[in-house]
């Protein structure tokens, strides 16, 4: 565990978010197909619109950790549209309020996810099992906190990777769920077997952040 990578300053956080944006942008087609299967097919288009706007907005953003996260949230909220715009926007807006101006460390990351989850659930009233991105976000938040406590304090990198893994597992579990919220609700039993599109996006976001940790600055 190298101490200089144990936290991101605002500029490092920007770079990590750009990297996550690129991962989501490269998977637009996957998201489109997933939303075509059980939704209305616009999730990929919306996320691509949103994360392109995020990449455009980050460079000029005030270099503090809360400001960076708040900018991402505001941008996603205004550009994505539909349900996921409100949800991803809320995740970052609510999460930004839980972190300090100090560098973004494991504790900050865990707080970000916890506060983001709380905001998302307040905004959309989704509970685990409703087949939404909450089914990826909730285990990710829990796993980040558990990893942090487990070793009597873990690195940001350990927490990011653990959260991304948990999100991916949660996303896979949504295949077995019947949608009870949002547009996929219409399909009822027909949504079985397909993963939730928003849960895929959530997983990609965390994988992108985790991947940034391993890269040269």
């Amino acid at each position, binding site marked *: 565990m190298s101490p200089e990578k144990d936290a991101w300053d605002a500029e490092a956080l920007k770079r990590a978010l750009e990297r996550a944006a690129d991962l989501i942008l490269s998977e637009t087609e996957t998201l489109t197909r997933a939303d075509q299967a059980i939704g*209305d*097919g*616009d999730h990929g*288009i919306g996320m691509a619109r949103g994360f392109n706007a995020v990449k455009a907005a980050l460079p000029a953003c005030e270099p503090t950790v809360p400001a960076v996260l708040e900018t991402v949230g505001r941008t996603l*909220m*205004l*550009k*994505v*549209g*539909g*349900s996921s*715009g*409100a*949800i991803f*926007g*809320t995740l970052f807006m609510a999460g930004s309020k839980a972190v300090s101006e100090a560098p973004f460390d494991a504790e900050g990351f865990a707080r970000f996810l916890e506060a983001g989850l709380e905001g998302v659930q307040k*905004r*959309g009233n989704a509970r685990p099992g409703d087949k939404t991105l909450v089914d990826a976000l909730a285990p990710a938040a829990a796993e980040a906190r558990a990893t942090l406590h487990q070793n009597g304090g873990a690195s940001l990198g350990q927490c990011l990777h653990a959260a991304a893994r948990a999100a991916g597992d949660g996303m896979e579990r949504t295949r077995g769920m019947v949608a009870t*919220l*949002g*547009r996929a*609700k*219409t399909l*009822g039993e027909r949504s079985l077997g397909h993963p939730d599109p928003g849960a895929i996006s959530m997983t990609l976001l965390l994988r992108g952040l985790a991947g940034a940790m391993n890269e040269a600055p």
Partner: protein
Amino acid sequence: MNKARKILNDPLRVADELLEGLVLAGDGKVVKLPGVNALVRPDLPEGKVALLVGGGSGHEPLFHGFVGKNMADGAACGDIFAAPSPDVPYEATKAIHRGNGVLYLYGNYAGDAMNFDIAAEMAAADGIRVETIRICDDVASAPPERASERRGIAGDLYMIKIAGGAAATYPTLDEVVRVTRKAVDNIRSLGVALAAGSIPQTGEPTFLLPDDEIEIGMGVHGEPGVGRQKMTSADALTAQMLERLLADLPFKQGDSVCLLVNSLGSTTMMECLIVNRAARALLAERGITVHATDIGPYVTCQEMAGFSITLMRLDDELRRLYDLPADSVGYRKMGKAGA
């Protein structure tokens, strides 16, 4: 089912293009805000309580077609069947606010609720007072105990007519909210789907319904309703629907109502008139009088076949507001007194 034959250009630009066409059809009475798909009335007087409506497009003339005199002051328009992002209602809010608050009025769908709520919070941060009422007239979508969870369907028209009239004549947002809530309490709808419309981007059907089957209470995008059954006669279908509708409020002998027979798209006015005939006979039997009737495709889902019946129970205040003249691209009306 064959692919629908649609008159379109770029399927991904449908919402942008229809709004441009709508602004032009408004002959100067509505303008589009730069950068967002929001329509507003340019001529709102200072101090007017403002009414903002909106939601996904593809249900024309709902919602953006109902911006106009004594109707909505602005509409936030999403993509086809998708909620608008919050900047659309937020920008519209700033454009129509005249210092006396804004009422948000839209169908009770999760995506709309989240995005309008965010806009309301942004507006509140700017010091604009926003109140929200979600339209939930579809009796098929939840039992009466959970009426506030119901979907908004064709009752949207009457809600906007009443709220628009109130916002044009009442001095305070509180008064407008009060009468609009009263409208929510007194409006009930029930629809029936006979065949799906199509998704403009793909031409694919919005849902699947077995040949010869219909679904009473199915939502306008194919959301589940009361149940599927075989097709039957106009009279039998109307009786079945009215029975459920009347029991819900319940509507009682001596009530005076407005009656809307709404086509979901390809069901003709001829059929809606035949439904109206049956509905009126049944209402007369129950001692319910009809103050006024609206018939036509007001809340649609592309070329979906089917219709809905909406009843609004009137008191003197609702009657007076309903009787106001109206002028929007999608709903026009002379005043009761004539002109």
